[in-house]
Structures are given as C-alpha cells and as structure tokens.
C-alpha cells in the first residue's frame, strides 16, 4: 500500500474543486436539515415507506434538480431530501400539498408577528384562509 501524508492529501483534495470535502465535524449545516433527516427516519420506522422507495424518490429528486441546473455539489443535498419527503408524504396520503402550503404560510405569518429572539408559536389566527 502506498504511503500517504495526510496533510498533503488534504491540500491535494482542497485543490480539486470537483469533489467537495468536509471535516468530520457536525453534519447538519442548519437545524432544518437535521429535522428533515430525522423525519425521514421516523416515518420509515412507522412503515410509511421502505428504504428502496426512499432511495428511488430521493434519486429521482436529485436527477430532477440536476436537470433544472442544480450544481449538485452535495451542498443542496437536504433540499432534495426535503423535496423527496414532501413528495412521499403526499403520495402516501399522509398530508396533501395544499395542507402543507397552508401551514407553511401560517408559520410564515407567525414568524412575521413574533418579536426577534422570542420562540415562534403557531396560533389559530396565523391561518388566513
């Protein structure tokens, strides 16, 4: 086996932009990524979908994003993940897209009216039908 100098290896891979590298640190860039990840695991445990179903849907979302011009460097990975999650949830009849959109707007409204630094809570008046 050839010898490998870790420092040289790091410099070499940093010089090659095609394969992004990361440290072995925290894996989620933002909290929503962790939430989306955990939701998929939890729904799988409930038997909502199988891993092959998940892999097919996620792979399909990645391909779609690539076709639409996503650089697909791995940075946008959890965007694809969330797309796959919303799609499977709709396909399996757990939540319709219209419902998700309604809640999305309600959260948006709740965020708008909540003073900075205060936890955001959803209230009935946030739903504007």
């Amino acid at each position: 086996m050839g010898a490998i100098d870790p420092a040289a290896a790091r410099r070499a891979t940093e010089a090659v932009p095609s394969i992004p590298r990361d440290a072995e640190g925290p894996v989620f860039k933002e909290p929503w990524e962790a939430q989306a990840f955990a939701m998929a695991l939890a729904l799988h445990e409930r038997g909502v979908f199988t891993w092959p179903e998940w892999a097919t849907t996620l792979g399909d979302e990645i391909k779609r994003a690539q076709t639409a011009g996503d650089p697909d460097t791995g940075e946008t990975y959890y965007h694809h993940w969330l797309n796959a999650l919303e799609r499977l949830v709709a396909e399996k009849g757990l939540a319709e897209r219209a419902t998700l959109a309604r809640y999305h707007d309600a959260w948006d409204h709740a965020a708008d009216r909540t003073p900075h630094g205060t936890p955001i809570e959803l209230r009935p008046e946030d739903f504007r039908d």
Partner: protein
Amino acid sequence: MQLRVRALETVLAEKGYLDPAALDQIIEAYETKIGPHNGARIVAKAWTDPAFKHRLLQDATEAVRALGHESRVGDHLTAVENTREVHNIVVCTLCSCYPWEMLGLPPVWYKSAPYRSRTVKDPRGVLADFGVTLPKDTEVRVWDSTAETRYLVLPMRPGGTEGWSEEKLAELVNRDSMIGTGLASQPGKAS
C-alpha cells in the same frame, strides 16, 4: 426551507404520524453518539480478533448486531476487506446510501455528483484526488451502495502496530479509510 420543514412537522405531528420528542432523540443520537467511531471499533476488533473478522466478512449485519449495533436502517451491511491485492472503494451512484450506523451521516463530497459519477469511471483518479496512491498491480474494486446493501471497507492494518489494544488501534481508523477514499492512519499520525 425552515418554514417548509416546520409545516411538514406540524402537520404530521397533528395527525399523529410523528412525535417531535422522538425526532429530537434521533437528531441527538446522530449528532453525538453515532459517528465513524462506531465503525472504527468494528475495524479494530476485526484486526485483533480473527474469528470476529471471519464473521464480519461472512455476514457483517449479524457480526455487528452481536456487538449491539442494531441497524435501524433495516438493510444489509457487507464488509469488504482491503489487501495488498485489492483495494475497495464505496459509492452510491443513485443518491447517498451509506452505512449510517457505522459511519454517521455521509460527508458532503460523498453526496456530490462528481464523486458519484467519477468513482465508477475513474476510481484511481478519485483516489489520487484524496491523496491515495496504490501500487499499480493492486486491483481497485468499486461497490455501488443501494438501499438494501451498504458497504463498510475493512482497511489494511498499518505496520508497526503489533500488540496494540483495540482502543489504540481504533484511533487509527478514520472515516475515509472505511469508505475506501483513504487508508488507515499510520502510527504516530493518528488524526
């Protein structure tokens, strides 16, 4: 993104499909407990315990289950051994199938299009990008993960580690060496 995730979580929780507390537990586990150190312990055990290594290569799912690693991914784990003759490297060309329980969540580059496509076409080129140069006559085998089968590379044990304990050996087993994009660290250079 944050709003979309909140919307999804709220709807699913209200309908009883999700328990927010369970989500927090999953996240905490992946952020603190599950990571490459799980796989490193398996590798170090295989280096020191020939019977375990045999079981690991025969049926990795069973071998790691016996050590208390129950796979919540519910798939099959296969261990592939690196030798002087064969070097194994793992990719998921479709998306990002990865042995989460053993290695934590995949690094960004593992999920990138260049890695997914180039590893199959030019594994030696990818290895060179990672600073790994193999002897010319070493065969490079590429394993494409699927949702059913995920791979753990058993890297070669570095020389000069005779008589080391499992704990000490595990420190030489870095994440990339278990994906096949790296080698185990040399003694004295543990990362």
